[in-house]
């Protein structure tokens, strides 16, 4: 796969986040783009707002990597829509990413806590 130049850490971080969220959403079952966006927004209590425009490039990126697969189907609203579902590789990737997230979150928390505590001891 070609690379799109070198994204900044931030871009990389957010992009990775969106990827995990999409994969997590699809654990519940196949869904089309609009459903995925709504689910992410609702289940994060609207903290993570998905920019709908960036959702589709992300979906294609995941599909290119073989983590999700897609096909045309009919939605609940009786509209034609492209449905995405997790592949086996996608499940493995989600498990990997989840554990990595947890490790990192723990580490960041551990760093931040003592820093807050030490604040008063320094002039």
């Amino acid at each position: 796969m070609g690379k799109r130049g070198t994204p900044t850490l931030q871009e990389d971080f957010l992009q990775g986040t969106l990827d995990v969220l999409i994969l997590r959403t699809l654990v519940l079952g196949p869904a089309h783009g609009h459903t995925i966006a709504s689910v992410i927004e609702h289940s994060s209590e609207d903290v993570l707002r998905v920019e709908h425009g960036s959702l589709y490039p992300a979906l294609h990126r995941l599909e290119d990597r073989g983590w999700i697969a897609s096909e045309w189907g009919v939605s609940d609203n009786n509209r034609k829509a492209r449905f995405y579902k997790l592949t086996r590789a996608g499940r493995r990737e989600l498990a990997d990413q989840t554990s990595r997230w947890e490790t990192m979150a723990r580490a960041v928390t551990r760093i931040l806590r003592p820093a807050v505590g030490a604040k008063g001891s320094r002039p």
Partner: protein
Amino acid sequence: MSWRRYFRRAAWDAERRAELDAHIAHEIDDNIARGMSLAAARTAAHRKLGNPALIREDIYRMNTIRWLESVWQDARYAARVLRRSRAFAVVAILSLTLGIGANTAIFGLIEAVRLRTLPVPHPETLVAVNVDSHGWGRTGEFVGRFGRMTNPLWERLRTERDLLPQPFAWGVQQFDLADGGESQPVDGLWVSGEFFDTLGVRPAAGRLIRHDDDSRGCPTPVAVLSHGFWQRQYGGAPDAVGRTLRVYGVPMTIAGVSEPRFTGLDVGRNFDVAIPLCAEAVVRGNRSRLNRADSWWLVVMARLAPGVTAEALSPKLAARSATVFAATAPATYTTTDKEHYLQFTLTAAGAARGVSGLRTNYEQPLWLLLGIAGAVLVIACGNLANLMLARARAREREIAVRLAIGASRGRVLRQLVVESVLLSAVGAVLGAALAGVLGRALVALIGTPGTTYFVDLELNWRVLGFVGLLALVTSALFGVLPAVRAARTPPRAMLSGGRGTSEGRERVLARRLLVVGQVALSLVLLVGALLFVVTLRNLQAADTGMQTAGVVVAEFDSRRSQIADERRPEFERQFMQRLAAIPGVEAVSPVAIVPMNGNTWNDAIVVDGKPSQIYPNINRVGPAFFDVLGIPLVAGRLFTVQDTPSAPRVAIVNEAFGRAFYNTPTPLNQEFRFDVPAGEPNPPYQIVGVVRNTKYSDSRDEFGPLVFLADSQATRWTVFLSTVLRTRPGAALTPALIAATREVDPRIVVSVQTIESQMQGALVRERLMATLSGFFGALASLLAAVGLYGLMAYLVARRRFEIGLRLALGAEPRRVLSMMIRESAVLVVIGLVIGAGLAWLTTGWAATLLFGLEPKDPVLFASAALALAAMALAASFIPALRASRLDPTTALRAE
């Protein structure tokens, strides 16, 4: 990734569009469900998604070979831009084509003779065995271009199988295929029976020479043709195999034809006919070299076991040398010669690239020419860079607009670089094609009437790599600097319009530096060119002490006539009379060593009982020789009919001989002997005449001691007879000579040349260097002058306003003229100083190729600098004159 997106972009895109439409539809549904009106719902949905076209673009570009694609886009754009400015493109491509073509042609030749290995399997395991004579030199007869070994040495070395597991030997010589009349020389190859098998050469037809073809006696001599000769002479006819070929009149059966890619081991030459070593005795009869231990005519080579190197073999060969040389010491040697011979050592050298006289003679000149052609290409690139800078200025607005509407600097830079890369690439492709033609012309230029070089100039990976490298380097040289500059300029400054004032300064400095560099490089090339031109002129004008104009050399081969030795003196006398009777011939003389054709014969003499340290050159001539070549007699007499074999031995010497051995230029009546092996007759020679000094074998030589012996007193006779003839101008002699020869004996073969064409042939390398370096030097100066002209024209255009103002305020046109000239003179002088320094440092490389002058000749440096300065003045005069004739009103109004 899905490749569909590249090949069926429309269908792929429609699918993306449908997906995004579906998304919007769902969002509208949701919004309506939340209670919005249809219109509001639609607007909100669209706002939330963003621009669908941009999203589709994003997806399309994601993970694609977008970079490549946009480079392709750049290339197409560049092609369009260049098509629009056709004049610039034509000039650029033409100079690049010529420059890259010339460089590639020279490199191709170097690649073929220096870098390429022989076209046989495993060339890296081949070694050549050489004799190290420790500076004493070898004594005896040297035949062909590579007289490195004698046959007795070869027969001894082929038994040393522990050191040389797979030995073979070969020698080169011109074979004559004529049965009588005019000679038909072909490039001959003597080969030992192992030659073709060991090298792994395959036949193209029939079979090659085998081990059992090469045995003493040679009952059934066979010949093998090269593929080229077979095509040329037999039209590639399959039934050529089995036919009879007559080599020196001896019939030989054509056994087969060698494969096309094998042209012999002498890189640069092609063999025509190969015959086994044993056939030498059949062809030469009692003059055979097979048993002569002092006749050097062979090259001994071997294939080593894998992993054994020449370096590892050499000490072992050196250790074996004493026994090898002891077993082969020539009986004909004097005591001193024999003493030296026994101390010779054998060495081994890698022979993966064969041996090559072309390489020995032309490797250095070719590298030098490559350097010269490279410098010309750099100068041409300087002009292109100048043009690019000028264009960049003209395109400032275009670039500013592109920067202003959001193109990144990197993108603009790449666009400009792609333009120069495209030019270089086109130049490289055309140049590579041109190189084939130029390379063949170069090979033809090196050849002489008797010597046709054959070089397989293939476009292999090395040559193509060189072309690619040139394309990259040239585009970097003329493209990158202007592109970086153009992309760096702030868009506002360019868009603000009008003439740039301060922002142009840096660019003008760059252009000035370019011109300084061009002048400096051209001075180096001009100095080099003058060195070679003067060398050639010195050699051509070199005084040989002889009047060579109108002297014809006729050589006769009477081996097919079976004339008994005792009849030869009489035969020769009658033959000379017949030749002298040809209309147009004024005088004719037999001669043992034809002057100035490169052959030599020297020996030690004994004066007052002591063998000399200096070996004088020797020649054996008839009475008319001095008349034919216009050599004046200083004292004493010439040879006469009274100098018979029974009369006392007489000699005529030159003045250098007298000074070297008797401390007087005219040692009349003195006696000397030759240093011969003990037991041989050694009569004294009396000096009866002294002649003016002459050159002996080469115009580069000094006048050395030279002794002439009387042809009429010769005791040994050969089947070869060389003669020199003084002819009246305009006489077409060759047919008359051939007719006269046929009349005497139709089996005698004759070849005719003029002495001057032989001398010209010896100057081929000098002529090549003078012609090519002269051409490149003139071209370089012209290019530098064009560069200077361009700069001056630009400066005048830039300073129109200022000059107009000066003129309006009353400045004299003459002062404006001198102001502009001064401006260019500063650059030229700086360039000349740098160039003179560079030339001073580099001309030493050519020292060995020069004759009659020093590489750092100050007069020559000064004349080159003057010539270049004059050209530069002429180039800057026109724009300067135009500046001084500027009409102030128009110049000022234009602002």
